[in-house]
């Protein structure tokens, strides 16, 4: 396992050098089509590593538990640091000189997770090309995590998240992003009614918006957006976000959040694979271990 820890330490040092030379990672640079190119490069590299695994011990080593344990321990360690330090918002620079208050842009953190992705890719390839039924839970879990990790990370730059302030009986088509920039949307929304119910103590029981949604090609759709019940129109999910809390039940303002995440289906594919992996691990894993 020593070599695994050495590799991890090497990645951390490399990461620190990068952190101080090029600065924290700017994930917005990965916006389409950069992310798909990075994904192809990753897959190509993984395929090359797999092809030459019989030639190089280092390549074979990637698909072993001996390699996985140090990687997991070190990723956990950096994630613990993240859990112990207050993290800054995505839009602000790190609040410390190292960059650990913005862990998701901290090179050593990202390199360790990338290393895990390379391990997962090798394991997935070994397990699919030398398929054995008893390894199904393991294979599906590794593949699911790989897909989730890659698509969630690379897709994050394409995620659009906008807040829309809708006023009763008025039509709005602009949204504000995390950087407070106004963007025009391909859909417009009219607030017909803001619905609010409270408990006896006045705390909110339900708040929702009765809205009409207009799309660019002239279609319109009436819908109620509740907390926990977003409405989906043309790739945009519309969420009930907030209201004028000073006015409470009398609020004439409803804040909606509009989210577009083109990579979501792939992330979900990964999540469902992991769920299937967990299910089969529960059923089969126990028995397999008994042998």
């Amino acid at each position, binding site marked *: 396992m020593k070599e695994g820890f050495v590799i991890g330490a090497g990645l951390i040092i490399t990461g620190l050098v990068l952190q101080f030379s090029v600065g924290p990672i700017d994930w917005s640079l990965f916006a389409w089509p950069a992310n798909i190119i990075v994904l192809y490069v990753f897959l190509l590299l993984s395929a090359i590593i797999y092809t030459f695994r019989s030639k190089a011990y280092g390549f074979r080593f990637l698909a072993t*538990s*001996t390699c996985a344990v140090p990687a997991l321990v070190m990723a956990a360690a950096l994630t613990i640091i993240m*859990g112990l330090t207050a993290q800054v918002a995505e839009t602000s620079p790190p609040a410390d000189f190292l960059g650990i208050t913005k862990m998701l842009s901290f090179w050593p953190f990202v390199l360790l997770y990338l290393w895990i992705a390379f391990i997962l890719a090798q394991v997935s390839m070994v397990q699919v090309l030398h398929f054995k039924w008893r390894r199904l839970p393991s294979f599906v879990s590794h593949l699911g995590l790989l897909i989730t990790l890659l698509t969630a990370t690379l897709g994050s730059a394409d995620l659009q998240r906008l807040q829309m302030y809708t006023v009763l009986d008025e039509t709005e088509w602009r949204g504000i992003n995390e950087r407070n920039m106004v963007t025009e949307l391909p859909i417009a929304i009219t607030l017909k009614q803001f619905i609010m119910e409270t408990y006896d103590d006045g705390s909110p*029981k339900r708040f929702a918006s009765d809205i009409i949604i207009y799309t660019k090609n002239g279609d319109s759709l009436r819908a109620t957006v509740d907390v926990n019940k977003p409405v989906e129109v043309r790739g945009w999910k519309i969420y009930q976000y907030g209201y004028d809390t000073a006015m409470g039940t009398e609020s004439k303002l409803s804040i909606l959040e509009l989210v577009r995440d083109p990579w*979501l289906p792939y992330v979900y594919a990964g999540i469902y694979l992991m769920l299937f992996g*967990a299910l089969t691990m529960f059923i089969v894993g126990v028995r397999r271990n008994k042998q």
Partner: protein
Amino acid sequence: MSWEHFIYFAIVSILCWAYGAYAAWKNKTKTAYTFTGLGLLVFFAFIIAMWLSLERPPLRTMGETRLWYSFFLPLAGLIVYSRWKYKWILSFSTLLSVVFICVNLFKPEIHNKTLMPALQSPWFAPHVIVYMFAYALLGAATLMAVYILFFSKRKTENEEMEITDNLVYVGLSFMTFGMLFGALWAKEAWGHYWAWDPKETWAAITWFAYLAYIHYRLLPKSDVKTALWMLVIAFILLQMCWWGINYLPSAQATSVHTYMN
């Protein structure tokens, strides 16, 4: 039904579990099953009654999640017992459950019926129940680890490690379910499936820690003591995730999970 009535149900359940645990020591398997089962039934009746009177699942507060934990521990103990007939497992699971019941009795967190809109979701109950069951199983695995590390006089047997591994495998699969149900729910409620909220960060840490254990156990040459210590550490990290973050300065006011307070 409210927390005032809890003590009666709790006493009956504890007596049943204690007698079941005693019967297990005396090799009266059937009696052990019957009484542990009976205790679980009584305890579950209280949970259901709470559910009905609150008009929402009792899953929101720390007190309410402890309620589930006290229920799942003897259940996990019973499952392990039925499978491997370990005499002492029911005593252990009962004892641990009693600890949680006592916390609820002496530090009751009485709450009203209100449930904020963000928690009114079909994902809510499965997310928390599955997690509590995972915690119970991993708690049982930690007990095994502590027992083998500190109390067992004999040389560690393969069978003991096999039980521990199985508990971790099942616990980890439930934990994965809990985590991913949470992700799917978060997408519906907050617009994104994973936001590195402090609870999520610690959930990831805990998950990695148990993954490290199962991979370590797969090594050609792994040391039993190291493996068991990994389990103890993993369970400490799990406590951070469960309630520790409520006391963590870095996690204050930023977590969507702070309603647990």
